């Protein structure tokens, strides 16, 4: 049950963390990192921010196990969608196809 009343102090701490993470992601976007590390860093910060919102603002941390399953399922399926999509597109150049004749 989510009858739990979250103290206002917790909301303020989460809000401050989200603001700091927003500044951090803007700052990190200008770092000259090799390869796709800029993308990985930006998405890691976004996932951390989303997790804070889901757990505290959306009260999932204080909710039933079934709510955890519901909340987790959507993002699990999203990961499947993106993983299978990119396993196709990213691997297309790995093997040279025979030229037509």
């Amino acid at each position: 049950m989510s009858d739990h009343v979250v103290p206002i102090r917790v909301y303020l701490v989460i809000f401050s963390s989200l603001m700091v993470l927003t500044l951090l992601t803007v700052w990190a976007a200008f770092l000259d990192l090799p390869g796709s590390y800029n993308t990985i860093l930006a998405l890691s910060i976004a996932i951390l921010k989303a997790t804070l919102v889901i757990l505290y603002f959306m009260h999932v941390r204080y909710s039933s196990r079934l709510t955890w399953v519901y909340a987790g399922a959507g993002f699990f399926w999203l990961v499947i969608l993106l993983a299978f999509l990119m396993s196709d597109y990213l691997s297309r150049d790995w093997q040279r196809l025979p030229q037509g004749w």
Partner: protein
Amino acid sequence: MSDHSHSVVAHQFDDMPQQKETTTLAMWAFLLTEVMFFGGLFGAYTMLRNRFPEAFAVASNSLDLTLGAVNTAVLIGSSLTMALAVHAAQTNKRRQIILFLVLTIALGGVFLGIKAVEYNHKFHEHHVPGAGFHFEEVPDWVDVSRLNYDLEKATETFFSLYFAMTGLHALHMVVGVGIMLVMIWMAYRNRFSEHYYGPVEISGLYWHFVDIVWIFLFPLLYLLGRHFLLEGGH
């Protein structure tokens, strides 16, 4: 007050905890369909950015980073006031529920206003996909002759995604504002108490979800091309 709490349990439920659990799960089930709904666009973005990385970086850098970052802060602020509105409902503070819901709507309005300013810039710059689309600003680090695609056409693809994703997100914000107006009306009619605040909490779930969508849109649309601006970017 206990009589009041009984009167708000719908007849198909045994008690208030069961009703609350059911409505919370129902909202999450709806949000799952929303994850999939936006997921298709995120998938299209992932695939097309992988295909046209230079075009996506160039087009992304033409967006106003300051306005995007301010909007992110505004939306996170609106999530805080939303959470405080739920807190006020849980602790029987009727005036505070209304105050925080009004603040939530106000911050949502600021977000949509800033978004409108950004859209207006894009119209003036002819960066809106369609017959009048132009994108001539090609920075030094892009060697157009080495690209195996048309840079301008690919930037138009980026802006199609930009308008589709932010437009769909803005539509969700407008719907959210409508829901909050209903909540204010219900709070004004004194419908909520520590025994019955489900509607405020469930509406809050929706509002926070829309915030989460923006938390991902902001880095994907505004940030991921910025490091190319550095000298000798790669």
